């Protein structure tokens, strides 16, 4: 019995009715009410006299007694020591209103009441004036109080003795939505009209002795019933004072009449009361709302939709909770045009879907699979026989709700974004954009619709911005005439709309030179500001006051810059966009900190000029600051265990900030030493190293990239990077669950193990080698490539022992496979690996390879690489040049070897012919390598002699002539090598002649 809550919706509980001296003191009846689970009592007044007492009690009751203040149509006055009842007067009202106004302003009351009409004969008949006089005054007094209640958004607690029909009419005429008719004694048919308007009917315990009330309750739906006592009146026994604990009697009687459980009646009436009075729902409202939303009664659905909307907006937990019911399907059904649902309901449904879409990706997936997107897009269709401008105005609210929902849905990566390109939908979108943008820029006059028009334009533009990803889509949108409305919007002066236009331009211009050009050169229609060029406006907006605007403009201009339309020296970018971005990096705004570094990365990547400019503009300290501060905060949180880690929005976005600042640092440090030095001086290394062990794979990946960029500096590599302890975490990442992270870790280790032997040892011993070898068998091409690359670097300048260790694990058989791999990039790395294997002072290194692979096999492979290549650098598909150079240098290294190694080469005429052929190759580095071949073949010292046949063979191939030609090479290096080679060649000839 203790887990329910009875709400007595109408009683007159105050000191005057329950004096302390009586048996029924306030204390006594409240205690017994409490014991009977009557947890809330709405105590209403009749006039000035009791109102103050009601208010006093309510203020002392800790929320258990809620006050209602109102002027009753019947006033009890004392005359000659006798209480008499008379109809209310205008003077009563005048006297009463200040108190009512004060109560409303101070939020002291939960309803206005008891108010209403009482046309009982003894009140209005046989008096000084005709009956209609009293009725009219009662109406006026009632109306005035209704008005105040509606304004204050308060429900009315209504008395309607012998005037049920009239009271309901007054309420309806005044547009009242929230009212309870207490102890209604009118006809059931009239009451049903009240139900239709959403009014409630409260049932007093006296129902047990009133056939009329029983009949009424039998007719009314329980969804519109409330419990009341009207204490001290209307008790179950005629001559006994009533009290709130008797509310249970009403519930019992309702249960009997409706053939329901009493507990069920109590539960439903409690919910009804909470709805009516806005008492906070402490119990399971959720199930009821979900139930109600499926009701066939549009009013019920509307109320439920409103409840859902106001519960989920801003509240992720509630969104997730509601999304688990099948509410989303219901919302999508409501949107279907064929279901004949009213505009109001459809608008609410679209709005709620939009709010759900702000929740999380799973909810968006649910929305998408429920088929919401096509329904929402259909809601954008305009009636065919009206001009778009008028049609848009007529459908403004629906368009606003639908575009808002679509924008939210399309903001998630879980949505499918191709639907808008259906010609029908695209056409609607264009129509809306044209109509809205022209009506907001044309009339400077602001009217009630302007704000909505701007909003629809903004939201529609945002949809386009989010759905435009491919070149085809860019072209399609461009051809559909998207640019003019966007330009108009950009010049509209409405910040939100301008930001949206900028976002759309960003998407349209990304890597698209044609659209970038067209956008930049487009001019605003007069009379927008001076008809200036879009570029000028964008540059103005980069300097705007609003952070979001600056960010949007900087993004847009960065994309346009990357589409390669600006002429050098890119002064707009360097002098305007870059400094803006750097300033944005300093803003204390997580959203900005999240996005700005990425744009910075985009701006500087692959461009040494921009990296230099970023360095000079002091971008690196700002980026480093962000990284350092998010790393610190996060660690502190971890230590203190505030909140639930990883689940919260803030933690997630901090991770994103960390990731993005690492990406930006990687990009800005890629090409210039000064950038790397500055970054390291800004103390980014500890954060970067700890980011390598982040729980978030995206952060680990970004940290790998950052280490890779920094490790391009040999100086820093040997000191700071090693000191900071990057190796351990990187080696660990080779076992990462994500192949992308593994590949990136491989890539970062590449630089670390090059030319730095202590590191080579660490890598081999700590499992790096085993992993590299394992990854050379990976299905993931990037990982496989980076693994071979790492092995190649590991072998660079390595000692014989290291080489043998590596090859024991990799095996020569597999190396041969790699040399013949389908991918030329892999072949290139494998050849370089062989080149490093055969390089060195130890002749036995070459022996190892000769015997490991088989001399013939190796030379056959090299021969094949040489004969496959062309003489000219080809921009086309053929990238055999990639393998030519490492093949030649492998030969160079073999030629350094012993006389047997040279003899082996001299026995391969094909190879020699190719070397000679490439002596006139278009590329200088190739020509140099050929010269080195000759130098090494003809080199003689005390240990190794030149094979005697060498001179003849080379001479027959025409080496001498080629070398002489090379003496006039445009490249100095080539000339020098050629001279050396020729000199040695000639000394061979001398030896021969001797």
């Amino acid at each position: 019995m203790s887990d329910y809550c009875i709400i007595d919706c109408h009683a007159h509980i105050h000191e005057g009715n329950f004096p302390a001296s009586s048996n029924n003191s306030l204390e006594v009846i409240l205690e017994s009410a409490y014991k009977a689970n009557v947890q809330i009592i709405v105590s209403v007044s009749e006039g000035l006299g009791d109102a103050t007492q009601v208010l006093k009690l309510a203020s002392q009751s800790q929320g258990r007694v809620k006050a209602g203040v109102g002027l009753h149509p019947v006033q009890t006055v004392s005359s000659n020591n006798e209480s008499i009842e008379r109809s209310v007067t205008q003077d009563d009202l005048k006297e009463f209103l200040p108190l009512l106004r004060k109560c409303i302003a101070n939020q002291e009351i939960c309803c206005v009441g008891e108010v209403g009409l009482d046309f009982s004969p003894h009140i209005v008949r046989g008096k000084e004036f005709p009956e209609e006089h009293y009725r009219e005054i009662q109406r006026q007094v009632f109306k005035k109080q209704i008005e105040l209640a509606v304004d204050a958004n308060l429900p009315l607690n209504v008395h309607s003795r012998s005037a049920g029909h009239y009271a309901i009419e007054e309420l309806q005429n005044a547009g009242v939505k929230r009212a309870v008719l207490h102890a209604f004694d009118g006809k059931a048919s009239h009451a049903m009209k009240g139900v239709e308007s959403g009014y409630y009917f409260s049932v007093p315990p006296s129902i047990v002795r009133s056939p009329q009330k029983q009949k009424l309750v039998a007719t009314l739906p329980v969804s519109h019933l409330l419990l009341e006592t009207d204490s001290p009146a209307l008790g179950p026994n005629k001559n006994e004072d009533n009290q709130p604990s008797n509310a249970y009697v009403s519930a019992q009687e309702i249960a009997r009449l409706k053939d329901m459980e009493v507990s069920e009646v109590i539960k439903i009436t409690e919910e009804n009361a909470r709805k009516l009075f806005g008492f906070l729902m402490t119990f399971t409202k959720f199930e009821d709302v979900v139930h109600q939303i499926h009701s066939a009664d549009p009013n019920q659905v509307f109320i439920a939709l409103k409840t859902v909307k106001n519960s989920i907006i801003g509240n992720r937990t509630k969104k997730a909770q509601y999304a688990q019911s099948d509410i989303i399907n219901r919302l999508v059904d409501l949107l279907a045009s064929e279901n004949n649902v009213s505009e109001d309901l459809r608008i609410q449904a679209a709005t709620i879907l939009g709010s759900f879409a702000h929740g999380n990706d799973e909810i968006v997936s649910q929305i998408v699979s429920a088929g919401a997107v096509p329904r929402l897009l259909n809601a954008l269709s305009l009636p065919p026989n009206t001009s778009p401008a008028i049609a848009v105005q007529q459908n403004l609210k629906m368009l606003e709700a639908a575009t808002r929902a679509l924008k939210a849905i399309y903001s998630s990566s879980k949505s499918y974004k191709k639907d808008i390109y259906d010609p029908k939908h695209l056409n609607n979108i264009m129509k809306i954009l044209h109509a809205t943008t022209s009506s907001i820029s044309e009339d400077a006059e602001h009217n009630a619709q302007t704000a909505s028009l701007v909003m629809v334009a903004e939201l529609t533009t945002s949809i386009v911005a989010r759905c435009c990803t491919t070149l085809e889509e860019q072209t399609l949108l461009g051809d559909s005439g998207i640019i003019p409305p966007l330009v108009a919007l950009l010049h509209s002066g409405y910040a939100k709309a301008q930001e949206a236009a900028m976002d759309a331009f960003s998407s349209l211009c990304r890597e698209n030179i044609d659209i970038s050009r067209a956008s930049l050169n487009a001019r605003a229609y007069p009379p927008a500001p001076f008809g200036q060029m879009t570029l000028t406006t964008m540059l103005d907006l980069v300097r705007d006051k609003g952070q979001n605007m600056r960010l949007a403009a900087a993004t847009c201009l960065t994309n346009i810059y990357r589409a390669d339309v600006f002429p050098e020296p890119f002064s707009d970018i360097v002098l305007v966009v870059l400094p803006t971005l750097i300033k944005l990096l300093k803003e204390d705004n997580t959203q900005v900190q999240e996005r700005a570094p990425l744009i910075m990365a985009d701006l500087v990547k692959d461009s040494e000029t921009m990296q230099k400019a970023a360095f000079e503009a002091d971008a690196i300290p700002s980026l480093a600051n962000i990284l350092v501060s998010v790393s610190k905060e996060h660690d502190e949180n971890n230590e203190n265990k505030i909140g639930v880690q990883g689940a919260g929005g803030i933690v997630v976005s901090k991770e994103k900030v960390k990731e993005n600042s690492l990406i930006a640092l990687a990009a800005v440090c890629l090409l210039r030493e000064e950038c790397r030095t500055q970054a390291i001086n800004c103390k980014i290394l500890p954060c970067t190293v700890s980011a390598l062990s982040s729980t978030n794979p995206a952060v680990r990946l970004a940290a790998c990239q950052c280490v890779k960029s920094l490790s391009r500096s040999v100086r820093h590599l040997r000191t700071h990077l090693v000191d900071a302890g990057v190796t351990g975490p990187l080696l660990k990442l080779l076992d990462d669950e994500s192949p992308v992270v593994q590949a990136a870790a491989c890539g970062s280790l590449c630089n670390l193990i090059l030319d730095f032997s202590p590191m080579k040892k660490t890598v081999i011993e700590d499992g790096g080698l085993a992993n590299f070898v394992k990854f050379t068998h990976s299905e993931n091409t990037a990982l496989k490539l980076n693994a071979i690359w790492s092995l190649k670097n590991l072998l660079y300048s390595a000692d014989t022992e290291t080489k043998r260790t590596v090859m024991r694990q990799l095996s020569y058989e597999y190396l041969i496979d790699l040399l013949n791999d389908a991918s030329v990039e892999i072949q290139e790395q494998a050849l370089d690996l062989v080149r490093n294997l055969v390089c060195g002072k130890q002749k036995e290194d070459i022996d190892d390879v000769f015997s490991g692979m088989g001399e013939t096999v190796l030379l056959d492979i090299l021969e094949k690489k040489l004969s496959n290549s062309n003489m000219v650098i080809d921009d086309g598909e053929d990238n055999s040049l990639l393998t030519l150079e490492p093949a030649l240098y492998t030969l160079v290294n073999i030629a350094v070897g012993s006389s047997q190694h040279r003899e082996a080469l001299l026995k391969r005429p094909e190879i020699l012919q190719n070397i000679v052929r490439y002596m006139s190759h278009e590329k200088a580095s190739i020509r140099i390598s050929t010269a080195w071949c000759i130098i090494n073949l003809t080199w003689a010292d005390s240990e190794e002699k030149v094979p005697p046949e060498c001179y003849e063979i080379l001479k027959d191939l025409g080496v001498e002539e080629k070398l002489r030609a090379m003496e006039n090479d445009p490249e100095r290096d080539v000339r020098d090598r050629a001279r050396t080679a020729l000199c040695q060649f000639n000394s061979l000839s001398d030896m021969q002649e001797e």
Partner: protein
Amino acid sequence: MSTTTTTPAKKTISIEEWEKKLADVKINKQDLNKLVMNYLVVEGYKDAAEQFSIESGLAPMVDIASIQDRMDIRRAVQSGNVDAAIERVNDLNPDILDTNPHLFFHLQQQRLIELIRRGEFAEALEFAAEEMAPRGEENPEFLEELERTMALMAFEDTRQSPVSDLLHPAQRQKTASELNAAILTSQSQEKDPKLPSLLRMLVWSQNQLDEQRINYPRIDNFGTADLVTRDS
């Protein structure tokens, strides 16, 4: 000793000179009107804006009805009726609270404060646990503020408590202003009127001149804006 010699002679600008310079600056009457209108609109003086529009012939920069909406919402928060304010905002633009977690939290916090103010402790506890605790999990800052608010319930006499500021009208004011600013931003309007920042700029400029030890006619009383010279 050396510092005194490097101090430049104090420069003085006479009132006449100053007035002449002021007269040289042409200020468009319409611009001044716009400044006033901007203030009235942003601060929500609807009737004054309407009247001023008639007198100055200047169209207000926004639809007057939207000012009313904003003021109703503001008043609702200021009178402690946070639920009503939230409903109105959601009707106006549901994105406002869906995209401003801080603002949403502060409104919820205000709701909680109102419940506690009304002595509805059971409901306050329930509300805090069900509606607000999840926000605290999302953001540690929120948790701290929530704890501070809950502390209100621990004191017999909240006015003597260290968290009494939460019950002060200024707290409602703060929440109402935050909401007002968010609505303005969502409508592409400036969230602060321009006039106060102009005044701040004036104060700053005068301070700059003072630091330069220049004697000039200054405005000390912004109500009357009289030019006065200070005797040194």
